[in-house]
């Protein structure tokens, strides 16, 4: 099963290597990992998606927690949470096709952020399903380049603050 871990770490050089290194060393597979600062400049939040059964996830969480800079590990898989991914898609677009592409962009409430002679760059945010859907819809036009970031996630309501 896929688990979403929200990991608060001290915002210091080397933390990312330590976290990523722990995964590879112990043979756990990271599906995606995003990291960024939080409202507290001393703390960063990592959102890590990892595949595994309960036993594996328990070990992952415990091993993460052993790292000195890791402040808190929460498995938010079963919580009510909001998650988003961001994608930039450079899609092949002849003049004649632009209308159609713009319609698709509208439907997904995405945006066109760049225009080229024969291409458009589309930016979309949303959950994994939406991102996959927009990718599938634009595919017939020819995707020239695509970059997609990993998942960021946050529990709804007031929970999940670092004590």
């Amino acid at each position, binding site marked *: 099963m896929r688990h979403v871990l929200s990991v608060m770490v*001290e915002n210091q050089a080397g933390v990312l*290597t330590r976290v990523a*290194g722990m995964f590879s060393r112990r043979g756990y597979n990271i599906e995606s990992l995003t990291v960024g600062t939080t409202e507290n400049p001393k703390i960063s939040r990592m959102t890590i998606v990892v595949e595994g059964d309960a*036993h594996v996830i328990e070990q992952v969480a*415990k091993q993460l927690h*052993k790292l*000195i800079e890791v402040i808190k590990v929460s498995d938010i898989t079963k919580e009510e949470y909001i998650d988003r991914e961001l994608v930039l898609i450079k899609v092949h677009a002849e003049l004649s096709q632009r209308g159609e592409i713009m319609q698709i962009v509208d439907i997904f409430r995405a945006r066109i952020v760049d225009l080229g002679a024969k291409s458009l760059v589309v930016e979309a945010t949303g959950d994994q399903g939406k991102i996959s859907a927009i990718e599938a819809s634009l595919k017939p036009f020819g995707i020239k380049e695509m970059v997609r970031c990993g998942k960021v996630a946050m529990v709804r309501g007031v929970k999940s603050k670092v004590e």
Partner: protein
Amino acid sequence: MTITGAEALVQGLVSEGVSIVFGYPGGAILPVYDALRNSKIKHVLVRQEQGGVHAASGYARVGGKTGVCMATSGPGATNLVTGLANAYMDSTPLVAITGQVARSMVGTDAFQEVDITGITHPITKHSYLVQKADDIPRIIKEAFHIASTGRPGPVLIDVPRDVAEEICKGKVPDKVNLPGYKPTMQGHSAQVKTAAQMMIAAKRPVLAAGGGVILANAAEELVQLAEMIQAPVMTTLMGLGSIPTVHDLYLGMPGMHGHPSANKAIMECDLLVTVGMRFDDRLTGAVGKFAPHAKIIHIDIDPAEIGKNVRVNIPIVGHVKLVLQSIIERLEPVQHQEWFDKIRQWKTEDPPLYLADEEQLTTPMVLQRLNQLTSGDMIVTTDVGQHQMFAAQLIRLKHPKSFITSGGLGTMGYGFPAAIGVQMAKPEARVVCVTGDGSFQMSMSELATAREQGLPIIILLFNNHCLGLVRQLQHFYCDRRQMAVDITGSPDFVKLAEAYGIKGYRISHPREIDQVLQQALAQDELTIVECEIRHEEYVNPNVLAGKGLDEMVLGKGGNS
């Protein structure tokens, strides 16, 4: 008054109570050595950095203080790697300080540059690459705190040369502030209560003590608990000494080369209480066949050890000493007479693992005489191989911290430099290093260090002219085909002793044991005692790969 980073570092060491560092200098760590010169800290110049880190480990394991070693950048730092990995596996509190090239050179593949914090990430509890001198006082304080608390382990501090030379305005903070590091000390009270009830209710309980018992100074509590519930105690390789070997309740060491009754007890018990141990695969044998009838209670300070290799029924995370105390408080003395009698019966039924052969010198013979002649008043360090397993099975131990060996990593070359650290921590102790001809040659250059420091270590070298344990593995797994296990070209170890100006003896026949050992023990000097033993000695019993603990190969007389 202004001080440099290097001076702040040395001051930090002094205020952490460091009195000895084991090290080897070089360009990048020059400023630190310069500052060390003006301090009261004693520096022991080893002959190779690995010797330094192992010595610091031996020092820490018997002295109860964090061991400190130092090395320069690049090759100096990489020579520490094995020792750090060794200390990490055996939860030994160490602080290693390495020099690094100047900040402006970092990342340029400069002369003697190596990314030692990168290299050692997986084998240290934590590491620092110091970015500015102002941070040094804080980092030193944090490093010692991290190394010695919770589950102890090695911490590395990498200090660029220009940082060491820079003026340091940082102050030692009053308190360590590490929001992500708060080891759990007290066991969960409900779990403690359940554990106590289970111990009262059990019919066939067994205690298994690991290195954590010794690290937590909890041997007394362990024995008290065992006596209260009349449970036999087995110890892992790292836990040896946590109960006196001659204690009525002592069962021996379980596992691959473990004692048959200990292995039987694991297979038949209905409650297995494991304390400060990590279910190493050399101990469990095939995990699926481990302790089939038992509920398992696992007490450990490191939550990540719980359920890692073996699923347990009652986990208790906490400081082993405190947890044992709180369990004892909730216990009433119980009798498990039937179980106890059965175990005692097993012990008498066990076939003798090694038969005395009057004519042929064997390792067990020498070790057993050593027991008698010292009455067990000694600290033994070992290397890795058959001699290590013989020692673990046969050496009589009275106290915790008297058996110092490389358990987790199984590092050949550990025993002798560790003995140096042990002897420096305990100048009064009788220190015996039990080693093999293979292992000793990995670090015998430290003879010079030991001699320089005037350390009266007895090196008991079992020379079977081969890499015995590997030879034994080939016997079982490669259908007796032998490859790369004969050691030829070794020096004459008695002459080697002479070359170093120390005492050297050879025992080739059983009748020579007493005289030589007595003489060696009587003098207070660095001594090599070489014991000429046969190629074909084997360590029994032997649980082969994939087998359960009740499927051990017994054999006899060490001559299967």
